């Protein structure tokens, strides 16, 4: 999985407005106004199905209507990878799925219909834009111990990138 912060709101610009207005700068207040845009690559569709349940967030994701799927582009969970018989079953199923997918596409079925057979393990790419309040809620929920390993990894990475870009906002709020 690769995650990169593409841009974020300049806190200094907000700080100048607060100073001009003679109002104390409050991280809690600016959470709605600080926006981050991320690119996320090579996580599974299992994870993005969970991710898009967070609302007031803008997503644009690689469409399976237009891009052909390949067997190489799948995520294998560690619990399967470390279990020989489980991995054998997983790999066999993927081979059948991708062979069927390729046969359907070769037979003239549009990719938008052939994709019905594709697994949720398939890797995907997306861009995501959200404000600090939404991101904080996402991070709070998806870094919980009950959350699944892959989205936990994603949420922790998002948190680290946002914290490094706007440390004051995250540190002061977490300290509360």
């Amino acid at each position, binding site marked *: 999985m*690769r995650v990169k912060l593409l841009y974020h709101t300049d806190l200094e610009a*907000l700080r100048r*407005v*607060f100073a001009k207005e003679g109002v104390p700068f409050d991280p809690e207040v600016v959470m709605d106004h600080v926006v981050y*845009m991320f690119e996320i*690559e090579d996580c599974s569709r299992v994870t993005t199905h969970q991710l898009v349940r967070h609302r007031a967030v803008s997503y*644009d994701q*690689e469409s399976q209507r237009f891009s052909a799927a390949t067997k190489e582009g799948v995520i294998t969970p560690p619990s399967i990878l470390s279990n020989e018989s489980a991995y054998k079953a997983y790999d066999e199923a993927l081979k059948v799925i991708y062979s069927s997918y390729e046969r359907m596409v070769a037979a003239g079925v549009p990719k938008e219909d052939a994709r019905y057979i594709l697994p949720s393990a398939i890797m995907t790419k997306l*861009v995501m*834009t959200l404000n600090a309040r939404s991101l904080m809620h996402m991070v709070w929920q998806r870094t919980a111990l009950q959350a699944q390993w892959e989205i936990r990894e994603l949420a922790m990475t998002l948190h680290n990138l946002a914290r490094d870009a706007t440390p004051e906002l995250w540190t002061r709020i977490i300290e509360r």
Partner: protein
Amino acid sequence: MKVSLVWSSPSPERTIAVAMRRCFSTKAIGDIESELDQKGPEYWKYLLSKALQDKSLDVLEHFTMTLLVEGAAESDVGNLNRDFPYLRTTRLKGADWLISMNARTLVELWRDLRGKDFANRVAAELEGRNVCPIFSELAFGGRVRAS
């Protein structure tokens, strides 16, 4: 009411083009960015006009902005908030507000009588600062009224 731009996302039309290409390309973002830089603003304009034409306004959501709005009555801001729930408004003091939104909300404000006046002021401010000339031309068709 006076509207001033506090901050907006960098290179808006290129950002919108990145989001649009993300949907249709298998490439990594870095490669999409290289492709967009190589093809230049005329290609970004083509993609943006296609998004507006197809009503695929979701890609506009990645172009975001924050505004200082001075001299706005609480009732006016309240009405905007009620009619356009994706606006983010914070009262700084008195009749002065911090308002954040994305370009999709701006287009929706522009196309709706309830938001037209406010959208006009925002569009004029963006145009005055030359923030997004391609977006301004395509979304507002050069019909922005100077505030």
